[in-house]
């Protein structure tokens, strides 16, 4: 690890000023659980490291006008311990349970997890299904990006030089939404996802009025499978339709072979898990 200047601004505005003009040589540190190993192994050689951990104002979880707002520096532990997230963002809450292990959850932040843009980012999958948006601030102003347009490629995002992720926000799911989340890993703790699935369905009787299906670790970025979602929308949901939807989901992913699983296995598991999650959320008999 080459030496770097270490800056620890105590406010957002101080942080924005600190990174102004330094973009290519500057690395932001939130919880540090992903960044510090890459600093150590030399993958990253920044000249400046800006630690955002001191910006207490970016650590909050609140409900405002039908939206849940989460400060970017909120730790995974804070989400796990939040009655509000448990009640109104339970898809996200479930994902915090299987996020790495307790030691990492005490440091890792939701903003860091998203900005890191791993295809297997554990908070990204439920947040995509919840229709989350990411707030970005720079010295010039603020903009909001829907999470499904936030990831630009493998470990890449639309964050511009000089911008900092300040908040992630999602609408409180309507009452009676059906939802299910599952992360398949090689083991329970400290696992990087092999496939993860979040499903959110709005039903009117047996008719599905709205769908969100998000998948992780099966493409260069976590993603929504819109074609598959469209198959359920506006239809009476039965096992046949669920099967079509799951097949469409598996067709729209681009998994890779890696040390955790093969691409074929991942694609098959997409179909199986999307099928299972929809059935589970609706209480349908899963024939498989």
């Amino acid at each position: 690890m080459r030496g770097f200047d270490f800056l620890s601004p105590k406010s957002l505005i101080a942080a924005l000023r600190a990174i102004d003009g330094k973009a290519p040589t500057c690395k932001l540190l939130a919880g540090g659980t992903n960044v510090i190993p890459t600093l150590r192994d030399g993958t990253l050689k920044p000249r400046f490291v800006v630690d955002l951990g001191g910006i207490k104002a970016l650590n909050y979880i609140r409900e405002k006008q039908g939206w849940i707002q989460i400060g970017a520096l909120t730790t995974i532990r804070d989400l796990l311990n939040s009655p509000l997230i448990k009640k109104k963002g339970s898809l996200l809450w479930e994902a915090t349970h299987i996020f790495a292990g307790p030691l990492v959850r005490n440091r890792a932040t939701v903003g860091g997890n998203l900005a890191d843009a791993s295809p297997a980012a554990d908070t990204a999958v439920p947040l995509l299904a919840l229709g989350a948006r990411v707030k970005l601030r720079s010295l010039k102003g603020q903009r909001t990006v829907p999470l499904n347009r936030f990831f630009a490629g493998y470990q890449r995002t639309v964050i511009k030089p000089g911008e900092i992720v300040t908040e992630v926000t999602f609408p409180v799911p309507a009452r009676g939404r059906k939802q299910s989340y599952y992360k398949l890993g090689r083991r329970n703790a400290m696992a990087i996802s092999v496939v993860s699935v979040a499903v959110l369905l709005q039903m009117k009787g047996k008719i599905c009025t709205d769908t969100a299906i998000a998948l992780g670790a099966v493409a260069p970025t976590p993603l929504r499978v819109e074609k598959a979602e469209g198959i359920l929308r506006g239809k009476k949901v039965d096992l046949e339709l669920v099967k079509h939807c799951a097949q469409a989901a598996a067709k729209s992913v681009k998994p890779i072979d890696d040390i955790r699983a093969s691409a074929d296995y991942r694609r098959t598991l997409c179909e199986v898990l999307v099928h299972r999650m929809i059935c589970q959320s609706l209480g349908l008999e899963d024939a498989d």
Partner: protein
Amino acid sequence: MKTLSVQFKVNGEEVQAEMPTHITLLQALRELGYTEVKNGCEKGDCGSCTVLLDGLPVNSCLVLAVQATGREVTTVRGIGSLDNLHPLQKNFIEHGAIQCGFCTPGMLLSAKALLDENPSPTRKEIREQISGNLCRCTGYVKIVDAIMETTSEGSKAGKRRPRARKC
């Protein structure tokens, strides 16, 4: 090499040193003589470098030393000593929860943090809590037994003969 003056407390003692910005809290602690903090994987997978940072267990290899400024670090030496063992340490010995001992400092600190928050956790909660601390010797059963014994429920039950349970 870029350096910064860093000041924090370790087990109640003030530490002040000029440190390179890029070294981790783990490296700093070991260089300062706190070698009870073990260096395992250095990427947050194994938990052997666990310390309490303001009471919360963290991987000290995932914290830069400069980030500890103004904060309180507790290593296993801060929770008990040879002549005054912490109840967790006593029970680890009694239950044979230590074999090679490399994971033990981290294991004890993760367990202590859990009991500080929740004095009567279930076996499942204990297993979840220590899921970031790898042990390659014991198979965890005896570790969970020892922590169980230290819970308010376990101490109420008094001295029981340690017996293997399904973990």
